[in-house]
């Protein structure tokens, strides 16, 4: 076979590169609703139903896994008047810890903290291993539709993304609202002393809005 003809047979690696480039073009070109993957691209679990066996903060009521909400809970907004619901993070074999409520928009009221409190004043969350997963939920069992977790040594400007999930609720769109989430599981920050931040957006059952919660996470 002549040299030129042989040269036209592209190696498998080149074909793979082209396929990846084509795929990147298909994903990267903005069209319609943009899809942005939080970095790092850590796969995190967002459960649309409460995790079975999950404990709740004392005095709260979380729907068990045996009752599956079809879309959104029927719990009344009046159960959480006066501000957004409490945000709780739970590590394995540990008590759930209610986080500090930071900036939020809830029921036509927006409170802007703009900066994170110092970690020493935040609720302590002890994580016995950096390989552990953390689970976030709202009390008393209110759903949310979009979430992101991040951590920092102290300042909001230095937040490092951990994971995220869900989909935005757009009250002005004719598209169907995303399913309600009742918990979000993500990997713990690396070993160290951090401020852990979870930001969420509420769905139509809560009238929209958002909230940010923070903990002092000590990861061993």
């Amino acid at each position, binding site marked *: 076979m002549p*040299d030129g003809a*042989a*040269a*036209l*047979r*592209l*190696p498998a*690696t*080149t074909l793979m*590169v*082209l396929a990846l*480039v*084509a795929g*990147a*073009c298909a994903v*990267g*070109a*903005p*069209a*319609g*609703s*943009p899809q*942005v993957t*939080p970095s790092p691209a850590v796969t995190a679990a967002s459960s649309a139903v409460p995790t079975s066996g999950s404990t709740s903060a004392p005095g709260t009521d979380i729907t068990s896994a045996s009752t599956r909400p079809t879309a959104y809970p029927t719990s009344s907004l009046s159960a959480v008047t006066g*501000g957004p619901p409490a945000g709780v993070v739970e590590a394995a074999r540990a008590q759930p810890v209610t986080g500090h*409520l*930071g*900036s939020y*928009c809830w029921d*036509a*009221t*927006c*409170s*802007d*903290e*703009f*900066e*994170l*409190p*110092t970690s020493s*004043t935040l609720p302590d969350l002890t994580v016995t291993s950096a390989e552990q997963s953390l689970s976030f939920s709202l009390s008393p069992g209110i759903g949310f539709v*979009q979430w*992101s977790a991040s951590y920092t040594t102290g300042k909001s*400007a230095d937040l490092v*993304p951990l994971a*995220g999930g869900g989909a*935005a*609720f*757009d009250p*002005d*769109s*004719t*598209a169907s609202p995303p399913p309600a989430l009742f918990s979000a599981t993500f990997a713990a920050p690396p070993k160290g002393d951090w401020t852990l931040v979870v*930001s969420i*957006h509420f769905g139509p059952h809560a*009238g*929209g*809005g*958002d909230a*940010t919660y923070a903990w002092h996470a000590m990861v061993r």
Partner: protein
Amino acid sequence: MSRSRRYTTQLSRTVAAFGAAVCLLSVAATNVSATPPTPASGTTWSPNQRVEYHWKDVAPPPAWMKAAINAAAQDSNESRGARAAIFSQSDSGTSSIGYTGDIPTTYAVAYTIGNLPTSFGMRFRPQGYPLDWGTLRWCQFYDLPPTGCYDAEMIALHELGHAQTLDHADDAVVTNWTDTIMHWAPKTKAKAGWNQHAFGICDVARLQIRYQPLDSTTAYSTCLDLDTQLALTTSATNVLYGRNATFTARLSVAADEIYASLASDPVSARKVVLQQRPVGGSTWTTLGAMSFLDYNGRYSRSVTITNDDDYRAIFATPLSEGLNGSTSLAVRVTSYDLDSCSAPGINVYIYTC
């Protein structure tokens, strides 16, 4: 390495580089922001509602803070790109703005309560207030603002964004910081975006969704990605040779747009061109731009008819706003001359062609 293998390797690299270049060009050619429209919730004001605020009697801001807040109101009015509320200060205003440490949440720097469509209440913590993370410093207090201060005008614009029903952006999906001013943790001096004095494009997008653009000539935010539809009609489909036919095009946002408030909205004062193609031909020729006709998204152009031709209107995707181009269906106009017409009746000068 053999000559054949060296050539293959070189060709592979060339092909891969070409593919990457095509990909980058295709992405760069689009004008749509990847950041979605800023989240929002709650009842809105009426279109272009004039909302006046007074300084809270027991907690009026100092002069430098008043100036920053009033400047932010002007920023909101000028950058909203939509028929959102128009803010101004008036001692008889039903809304109020205070400068006080009396804020319901312990660490809040600012706080806004909406009572739309009647009023809003807003509070800012005073200069020098001790917060957990440090002392609050407003840049406008200083002759030489120190690093780490908050720009009061930018923060006030953020709060007015809340008053317009904007919620906090999800920073995980924001690709450019200045796409929105509604971050839950705005920047302090001198980080990029610390003194942004206009709504970001994705704030404007949400305001346009909730309140409609200012009018049909207003550019749609590049944070939107709206399809359009273009319809073309003609004054006559069979025209005497050498006479004119007037073509009218109507450009609008697509009727099936997911934002129902924008669906079918007229799009005026854009560039719409008229093209012509001989019947049975395959090549379109651009005759020129169609003129603005009215604010209902209509454009017109007269053409002297000398042949049987198809016509269509085209709106090309603009780079400067979040609209996608569209092409009308073709309209056919035929010409006739008097030789092809039957004679008129007695005393009636009407030809049948």
